[in-house]
């Protein structure tokens, strides 16, 4: 194998760790807005971490592709700072309502344009819609063998060995390259990238390409099949929390123990 080429698909989403008070649902306009900074989908960060580890053991070139209506290279530069080699931003206002099938289709077109690769990695799902479909659909569209929920990856003799998470434990699967693998959080978090390193990146020219729907020859009204009929506010999860107080820890522990005893 010549230089190992890995593509990581990364979605930009509002921080899924944001408190629920940060989320507002506009039922009229059918828009959810989150008052929190955008981040790279944490599961896609897991996929990037897996890619960087493979590159560390056998060399290689990592391309990160992101698709969205409005992308921030500030958010996505983190991928380069962590160890990716190239960023491709596929951006078009019409991508606002892309469904999983639509996103996978745009990724397919992008990947066909950039040429050859050995491995595509995606996160197991995205922390906004949690559908977990794009990676698997993309594999089908590209006619690639694939496996999901990777906890560990190793490349050997033109194959990828994937230790994957299954309900009974783990399973070791061998897949011929080129292949697509979806990555689970068991891989571990993306390595720490210091803020100063990301800020330094902002000043540097980084290897980045921007593509639009037109560049890919996409008829954007035809890529999505799912219609959002209605958006509803969530059922209320809040409860009235009674805080346990007391003169000292001893007394608080006593009260807490009583509450526990009464609850079972």
């Amino acid at each position, binding site marked *: 194998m010549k230089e190992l080429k890995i593509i990581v698909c990364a979605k930009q989403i*509002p921080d*899924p760790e944001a408190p629920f008070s940060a989320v507002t649902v506009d039922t009229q306009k059918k828009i959810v807005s989150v008052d929190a900074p955008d981040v790279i989908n944490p599961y896609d960060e897991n996929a990037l971490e897996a890619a960087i580890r493979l590159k560390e053991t056998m060399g290689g070139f990592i391309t990160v592709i992101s698709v969205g209506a409005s992308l921030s290279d500030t958010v996505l530069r983190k991928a380069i700072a962590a160890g990716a080699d190239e960023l491709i931003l596929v951006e078009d206002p019409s991508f606002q309502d892309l469904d999983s099938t639509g996103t996978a289709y745009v990724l397919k077109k992008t990947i066909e344009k950039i040429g050859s690769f050995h491995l595509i990695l995606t996160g197991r799902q995205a922390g906004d819609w949690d559908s977990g479909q794009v990676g*698997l*659909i993309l594999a089908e569209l590209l006619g690639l063998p694939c496996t*999901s929920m990777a906890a560990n990856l190793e490349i050997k003799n033109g194959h990828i060995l994937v230790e994957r998470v299954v309900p009974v434990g783990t*399973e070791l699967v061998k897949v011929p390259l080129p292949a697509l693998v979806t990555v689970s*959080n*068991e891989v571990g978090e993306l390595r720490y990238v210091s803020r100063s390193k990301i800020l330094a990146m902002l000043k540097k020219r980084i290897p980045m390409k921007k593509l639009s729907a037109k560049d890919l020859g996409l008829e954007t009204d035809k890529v999505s099949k799912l219609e959002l009929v209605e958006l509803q506010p969530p059922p209320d999860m809040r409860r009235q929390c009674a805080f346990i107080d007391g003169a000292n820890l001893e007394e608080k522990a006593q009260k807490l*123990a009583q509450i526990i005893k009464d609850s079972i």
Partner: protein
Amino acid sequence: MGDVLILAELKGSGLEKPTFELITLAKQLAKELNGKALGIVLGKDPTEPAQELRRFGLDLVFKVQDPALESFIPEIWINALEQVLKELKPQVFLMAHSPMARDLLPRLAVRLNSISTMDCVELKVDPKDNRLLRKKPIYGGNAMAVLKCNTNPEIVSLRKNSYPMAQENGQLSELKDLSLNILKTTLTQVLETKKREVVELDKAEVIISGGRGVAEREDFAQLEQLASLFEKKGIKALVGCSRPIVDKGWMSSDRQVGLTGTMVAPSLYIAIGISGAIQHLVGMVRSKKIIAINTDTGCNMFKVADYGLSEDYKEILPLLIKKLEEML
């Protein structure tokens, strides 16, 4: 007219529990669509589960029997189900939102030129055009999207605990064997399966979970100790965790509570050092009583808790264990 087909997953020689919710939903939708409610089981020898499936009032039950279907190999199953759906042509195809569904449905949908919607909590028929209205929580349950699509089959996975379980109706559905051309070779090969002891969090009456705020791996021993106090009284108690703990490799994913872990609703949920990321809250908010211990009084966990204690778990847990030893 549209038929509704469900895939019943096997557990040993029986059926996985969510199957019975699927039956309820399938019968309901079939009635509205003026079609039949159909069920199918696939396996090496799914005779017993097929017999069980016949007892719940489906219009017809299908069985596919092949040695290659003994374990779940996605390539084989996707190909098999593609044949099933092309032959039976149901309008709707349903599965429980299981690991199997997550692997199967997105790829199956592509092969049938349709799409799938995952993890829905409610399905209705739009009387205007007889298409499904698929309700799905998004943004960790902070909004509910109602979605529609006009391609067939309409493929959906259903979140657990969304519908009541079907009851036996005293009659037996007709059973048919389907013969398919099962794939003999696959590109992906399973080399080895490592089974480990897996805990079933959703069966526990008491769950004690630790999160990012639990500083040391060793501190989980205190949570275990707390759980053992309930166990001694014959109350099933387990230690769970939030996602960061699995990410760190301190616990396996079967211990994870939340949207990507297990959805639980025990009598008592004690959250220790868990700030309350939405994806965790969705998984435990239906617990009867919720107690949160966290030093950060502003954290989300307190917003869904019945009782809160703003103290360092390291100080309070040993005292609490001592008190409970005396009281329980």
